[in-house]
């Protein structure tokens, strides 16, 4: 992480984790260079109930699936995606 620069990201929740968090979308300011994994860990400290869901979540950044070590950038849309159930 690069220190003092900060970025703003939008975090989206759906289905059970959305209800657990109590919001479909959060705005968070984090240090530049924060990874998906670090963001999720911060959110889990803020919302301990999320811990029940994190092992089931995939993450998409700007509507594309990404790995846990992906670095976030200013303005990113980070979607926390539980297993799907359409049809």
């Amino acid at each position, binding site marked *: 992480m690069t220190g003092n620069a900060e970025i703003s990201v939008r975090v*989206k929740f*759906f*289905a*059970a984790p*959305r209800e657990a968090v109590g919001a479909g979308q959060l705005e968070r300011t984090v240090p530049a260079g924060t990874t*998906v*994994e670090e963001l*999720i*860990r911060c959110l*889990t400290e803020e919302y301990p109930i999320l*811990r029940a869901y*994190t*092992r*089931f*979540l*995939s*993450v*998409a950044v700007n*509507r594309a*699936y*990404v*790995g*846990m070590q992906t670095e976030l950038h200013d303005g990113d849309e980070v*979607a926390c*995606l*539980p*297993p*799907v*159930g*359409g*049809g």
Partner: protein
Amino acid sequence: MTLFEITPEPLSADAVIARLADPANGAVVTFVGVVRGETDGRAVRYLEYEAYPEMAEETLRQVGREVQERWPTIREVAIHHRVGRLEVGETAVVIALSAAHRPEMFDALHYAIDRLKEIVLIWKKEVWADGIEWRSESGSPMPGSFPYLDTESH
């Protein structure tokens, strides 16, 4: 003419088929998913479907592309999925495939509904007389996505 659509409005098989209108297409097969009155022996009161619409419509398109890659004789694919509260007996999803001839359409339709349930960004909450549950088709991790986050193991 939107072939792939996530909508809160009631669905119509005829309307989805009409999106395919092309006189060269002699045969259309559809799959219509209807809200069932029970799941695992428990009475369902209603369902709530929730989507990540921008990504869900793209994954619907992906299902269509996959079908046409595997079965090149399929001329057109249309998929509409409803979201919001759905009562028992209402239609949640309509998939329609068209082709000039029949032989491969049935396998292609089977593939399309299976794949929709695997990859499309839609979630379903079942509301029973005595409880609720967010259900995924498999209960297992989403195929094709990266390993699930596990903050407890780090």
